């Protein structure tokens, strides 16, 4: 058994009277892709926000590499190697690829008050890193706004990896992407996990989660319905477990009903 990178033990989060999370437990190991599934409002974003330092849990503990930890800010989580790629990606579309890549952590050169942003080095690293995932950035000073959704997603992920992420949290990385771009991003995520990162992948889409995930945690109305290993779980069972699975069954029945009445 390899050690857990991050443990979430009985995390609860209340917003006033709203119970956003109740006693959620989840463990992530090196090289593992943990898919976090659940319907809208199930508490997925809230869960990862507590892990990334945006929210403090009301109850429960977070253990990073064996040590109990309390995050006061996203910066604290980042310093421990927990990097989050948010739904909005934290990219500034008016800024260049390079400036985005190094936003907040610019490489410097020179001494004392004359320290400057080493643009050349930054350009080289950004193009190299983007090249490794098959995105040819011909001009690293081009604005991110001109890139496609998939390219942006890849930029945000490769930035997180470059800055030493040990745990990578991805909030709906494929939700806005077409089939091809989604598969490119998913491939990249698998590659990142193979190189030893722990990945938490949040998604609505079972068809994106199932092929890449090793384990699956399903949230329903703030509670965990458990964590399942892939071998114990078929795609159909997973689909069925997600809140909404039932509804889809019902929908199917209703559609058949309509079909029948139309035929008559």
């Amino acid at each position: 058994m390899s050690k857990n990178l991050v443990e979430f033990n009985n995390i609860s989060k209340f917003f006033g009277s709203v119970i956003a999370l109740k006693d959620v437990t989840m463990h992530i190991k090196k090289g593992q892709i943990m898919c976090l599934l659940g319907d809208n409002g199930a508490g997925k974003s809230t869960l990862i926000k507590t892990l990334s330092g945006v929210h403090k849990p009301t109850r429960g503990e977070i253990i990073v590499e064996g040590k109990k930890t309390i995050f006061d800010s996203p910066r604290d989580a980042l310093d421990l190697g927990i990097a989050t790629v948010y739904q909005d990606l934290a990219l500034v579309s008016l800024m260049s690829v390079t400036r985005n890549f190094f936003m907040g952590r610019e490489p410097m050169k020179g001494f004392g008050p004359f320290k400057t942003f080493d643009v050349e080095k930054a350009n080289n690293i950004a193009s190299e890193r983007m090249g490794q995932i098959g995105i040819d950035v011909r001009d690293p000073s081009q604005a991110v706004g001109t890139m496609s959704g998939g390219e942006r997603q890849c930029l945000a992920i490769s930035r997180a990896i470059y800055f030493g992420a040990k745990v990578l949290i991805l909030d709906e990385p494929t939700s806005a992407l077409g089939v091809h771009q989604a598969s490119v991003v998913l491939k990249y995520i698998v590659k990142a996990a193979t190189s030893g990162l722990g990945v938490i992948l949040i998604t609505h889409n079972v068809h994106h989660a199932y092929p890449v995930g090793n384990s699956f945690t399903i949230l329903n109305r703030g509670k965990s319905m458990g964590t399942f290993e892939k071998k114990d779980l078929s795609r159909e069972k997973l689909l069925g477990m997600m809140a909404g699975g039932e509804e889809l069954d019902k929908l199917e029945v209703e559609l058949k009903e309509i079909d029948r009445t139309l035929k008559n």
Partner: protein
Amino acid sequence: MSVKSKSIQNKSKDERLRKVSRLKVLLNRPELGALGGSILVFIFFGIVAGDTGMFSAYGTINFLEVSANLGIIAVAAALLMIGGEFDLSVGSMIGFAGICIAIPAIYWGWPLWCSILFAFSMAVLVGYTNGILVVRTGLPSFIVTLAMLFILRGATLALTRLITGRTQVPGLRVLIENDPIAWIFSADAFKGLFSWLGSLGIIALRQDGTPLATGVPASVLWWIGMTIFATWLLMKTRYGNWIFASGGDKLGARNVGVPVGRVKISLFIGTAVAATIYACVQVLDAGSADTMRGFLKELEAIVAAVVGGCLLTGGYGSAIGAAFGALIFGTVSMGIYYTDVDTDWFKVFLGGMMLIAVIFNNYIRRRVTENK
């Protein structure tokens, strides 16, 4: 066509992910519009007023000085605007800083340099207050600094009348002579050069033999210096990247560790300090402070920044652009006296220019932020 097919051959494994289009050179240079505008303005006045003395040494210094005064605050306003905020209290800060210099120096007997430092510390305080209010409350800076506009102007008037019984504080001129730091804001540079040019008959002389234009005013050097410094900050430092990031997407910037609050607060301090530099130049030049100084300057600074290519929504712009915006403003506002055009039309020109600039900038923003 051939280029395209070649690039696909080179890396055919992921051809779908490489439709990254190179940005037009134009879009990488927000100041281009203002630069072009400046050239047009100079061509226009060169034709219309070329033989009127507008471009003599004296005339040139005149319109450069007007441009410089505005440029000093426009450059700071541009940085703040790139950082995603406005400061409408700049004009009032000019008046306030003016009396912060004049009243202690004249009524309380402080040495002039002391009251100048006092004015700058008040500027830091006002800028910090603006900044912390905007950052903490999350209210639009437009509202917060509009309130500060009234508070500062009102306080300036009330305090001045309370202490002096008037709205103007004259009598500073004698203090300037022997002050150790006043020259920073009031001395003319290159006096020797101007005298020499005068003696050669290249520039016009007064009857007593001194040149009509005695040198390059300190404000012009401040303007150029601040533009260079601001450009260096924006393009070459980490802080510059943080300014762009804070204005472009403050949540995103914060999530990757940019100290957005600190950046914004420091930019507000920057505009207030720039207003105080402006006030120093004016007060020491005129030898008096007036409570109404700087009236409407905040709007002129915004016009210059916008004409210089800053987006009202933040995240994009340039300090050089703002400097050129100020140059256009100063050149037209002075040049119009050398033409037959009624000076009343100046404001029409100003508004029109701003409108064109905003439409142009908006077009650029759409090009840059939208895919393709």
